[in-house]
């Protein structure tokens, strides 16, 4: 039974038809995938469905009745719940308050705390989540926060649930939990729309698929069981997508490591961390969210205290106090996982975003920075990394995720680093750009850069890394040479994570 249908939707922005006759049908008791590259119109479509944008053409049908939403509030009241890609929980509030935010239970005008607790517990129980409704949301892990958002979307009695990239920043285990929840929703007869860049997941949990390309649906409501992964990718990119083919690259293991950690412990709780990275080598650091990988990187950069062991850079024991110190004296760079908040300055120009690490090098007496030299470097990286912009003075906030990530990386390349820590480089980035990033990282290593790659994307890890180091609970669990064979490697990695029969925290 078709629960919801968006029919022949048109949305025009000046100069561009963002949506050009897109049709999407959601069936009760079914999970529908919405696929497409960045800019294909997925987010626009979701915004039209939730009433954030008003369509310029086409109709929205709920239970066969034509509906029109003037605001997200109206679509929510009609039973359409949405979980956006970015977190939308309010930090100062508890889990319960966040779940019931849209209609907080009150008694005589005051918030009724016990009602919140029981109400919220009901929704958490429905999702089989073991989370205390009184817990502040700031204490939740990323995956838990994601699930709480789903509980929030369900709490408005939604029969249609839109999930926009729900697994972008969670690990496979957490994703598995999410998928169980999706399965349960499906069994309850709700219609679920699932947007993701990860095709493995799509094939795992979705029944039907709509593929968007350049604002039009190139496939509308096809059964996934009739399609192969390659066929789907071809539909998305509009031409035959070649599987990523990386050239040979060997690591000279006789070279001394450029970065070495010996028995490092930190204030965050790392203990006895041993790790080496050689020039030209990509070392993958894998683990579940909360295993302490990014925290280790930050401690290396002096953002957290190292309490034990020693860090050697180019064979010499060093104490790194600040990122500036790491950059200037040791040529270490860190591409953060938190692109929007830590990686780029959204309200500054592309030029300044890239040049931020080189002003120190360019400056003349009195701190004068010659605009010419700055522009030359910026332009060269914009070209080399294929950053698509109208001018270097364009604000980074107006760029797509992929281009923002290029900017975030460009500043470290411009800084001429020799050791680069790259944290989750391709979260929320479409298939083709992802391949380009993999080629780039591979290529940087081939040119002698030492790379410590932190990623929760196992296929990415197995494509790129020379060695995979597995971390759990702030300790190194083991190390595996990578044979680039996905089936074999993924089993070994997962086994290592769950070694000693304990479950990961």
């Amino acid at each position: 039974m078709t629960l919801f249908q968006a029919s022949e939707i048109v949305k025009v922005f000046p100069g561009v038809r963002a949506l050009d006759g897109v049709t999407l049908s959601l069936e009760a008791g079914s999970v529908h995938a919405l696929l497409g590259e960045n800019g294909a119109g997925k987010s626009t479509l979701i915004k039209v469905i939730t009433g954030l944008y008003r369509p310029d053409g086409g109709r929205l049908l709920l239970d066969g009745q034509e509906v029109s939403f003037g605001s997200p509030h109206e679509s929510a009241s009609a039973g359409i719940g949405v979980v956006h890609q970015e977190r939308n929980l309010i930090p100062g509030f508890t889990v319960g308050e966040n779940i019931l935010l849209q209609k907080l239970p009150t008694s005589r005008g005051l918030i009724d705390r016990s009602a919140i607790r029981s109400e919220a517990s009901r929704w958490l129980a429905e999702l089989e989540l073991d989370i205390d409704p009184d817990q502040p949301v700031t204490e939740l892990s990323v995956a838990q926060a994601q699930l709480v958002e789903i509980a929030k979307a369900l709490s408005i009695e939604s029969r249609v649930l839109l999930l926009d990239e729900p697994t972008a920043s969670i690990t496979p285990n957490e994703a598995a939990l999410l998928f169980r929840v999706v399965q349960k929703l499906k069994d309850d007869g709700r219609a679920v729309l699932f947007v993701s860049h990860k095709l493995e997941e799509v094939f795992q949990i979705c029944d039907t698929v709509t593929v968007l390309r350049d604002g039009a649906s190139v496939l509308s409501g096809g059964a996934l069981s009739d399609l192969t992964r390659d066929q789907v990718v071809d539909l998305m990119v509009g031409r035959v997508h070649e599987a990523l083919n990386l050239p040979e690259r060997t690591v000279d293991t006789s070279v001394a490591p450029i970065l070495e950690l010996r028995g490092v412990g930190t204030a965050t709780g790392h203990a006895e961390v041993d790790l080496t990275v050689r020039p030209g080598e990509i070392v993958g650091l894998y683990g579940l969210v909360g295993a302490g990988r990014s925290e280790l990187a930050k401690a290396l950069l002096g953002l957290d205290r190292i309490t034990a062991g020693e860090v050697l850079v180019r064979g010499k024991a060093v104490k790194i106090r600040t990122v500036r110190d790491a950059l200037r004296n040791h040529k270490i760079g860190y591409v953060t996982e938190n692109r929007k908040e830590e990686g780029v300055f959204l309200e500054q120009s592309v030029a300044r975003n890239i040049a931020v690490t080189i002003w120190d090098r360019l400056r003349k007496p009195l701190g004068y920075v010659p605009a010419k030299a700055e522009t030359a470097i910026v332009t060269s990286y914009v070209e080399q990394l294929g950053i698509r912009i109208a001018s270097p003075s364009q604000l980074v906030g107006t760029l797509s995720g992929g281009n923002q990530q290029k900017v975030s990386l460009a500043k470290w390349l411009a800084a001429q680093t020799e050791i680069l820590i790259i944290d989750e480089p391709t979260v929320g980035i479409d298939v083709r750009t992802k391949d380009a990033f993999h080629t780039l990282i591979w290529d940087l290593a081939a040119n002698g850069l030492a790379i410590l790659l932190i990623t929760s994307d196992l296929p990415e890890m197995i494509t790129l890394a020379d060695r995979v180091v597995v971390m759990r609970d702030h300790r190194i669990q083991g190390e595996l040479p990578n044979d680039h064979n996905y089936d074999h490697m993924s089993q070994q990695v997962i086994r290592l994570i769950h070694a000693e029969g304990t479950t990961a925290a």
Partner: protein
Amino acid sequence: MSAPVSETATQALQEDAPVEKPPRGTPWWANQRIGLLLLVVLLGALFGVLRPAFFNQQLVIFPLLRDIAMFTVVGLAQLCVLSIGHMNLAVGRMAAFSMMITGISYDLFHLTLYSGLLVGLVAGTAIGALAGWVIARTGVNSFVVTLALDFLLLGMIPLVYTSLTDNAAFVVKPPGMRELRNYSLADVCVGNVCGSPAVPQLALFAVVAMVVVGWIYSRTRLGRELLMTGSSVRAAELSGIPTARRVITAHAMSGCLAALAGFMLAVSTGSIKATIGEEFMLPSFLGPILGGTLLAGGFVSIWGTLIGTALTSVIRKGLDLLGVGLESLNIYLGLILLVALSTDRVRTLLSDRSVLGGPPLTSPPPPKREGEPR
């Protein structure tokens, strides 16, 4: 060694996606500074028509420009901390503190006019740096720290004055102070060409301050790093900017400019007393904010500060000449500013809509383009 990006990688990174065009730049009529400038000119003309005395060079224009110059410097003092997203509520008291030190240097050590100014600037820089240091060190909000400092100085300054002077003002005036107060550009001649008698020499201090601050923000590493820190402290820290030091620098610059403004006020009123700078705090925000400097940090406008200050000063002066009493004057001033700021907002909305066609926006930075992953 650098890590050049090889041809293969560059090739792979090229997308055939269209260039992501930013929403077209706002049209000229939506430019905040131009709108304000027009408003200043229009109001000036209006007041001039209503009261021809408004154009009297000696009695109106001269003191008006002196006021604008001083409050522009006050505005710049606030602008420096606004650039990193901070506030300086002690801007007036920092001026008072610096002038107290300057007064002592004249009174007890008989320094010349400009050495005393220098001592005052150093004192201002020091007290600003202290505020910055406390903020950087403790991580307490700048609002709270400067508010506390304001109270501290509020109590301390009169104590010093009463213990050192007879009637709460330093009476020793270094030679040249009175002249500086009254001299205009007419007293500055190159050959036979002299400047306008309507422009006070004191205004030159503001010009120098604007040039220096403008140069720092547009041309130097320091200025850029301040703006980046204002945009996002975390991203700045992770890009290797010494954010703690930048916080201290910004507050030190603020203190130094506050001291300069205090000096300009002392010269134009002819006395160095404890109450200097009492009226600085609110105007210090008005100028920059009207002129487009972001409260949240990351963007400053030096010109805007001048024009914003000019607007408030012209309104004040004009209403004063029209015989509006002090209380009603403040009501009118408040109303006009509200209208100025909201028409500005409406203009931005209109231009955004005509450019984008998107839904109305709720914040000034250009919206993210549709269709991008959010």
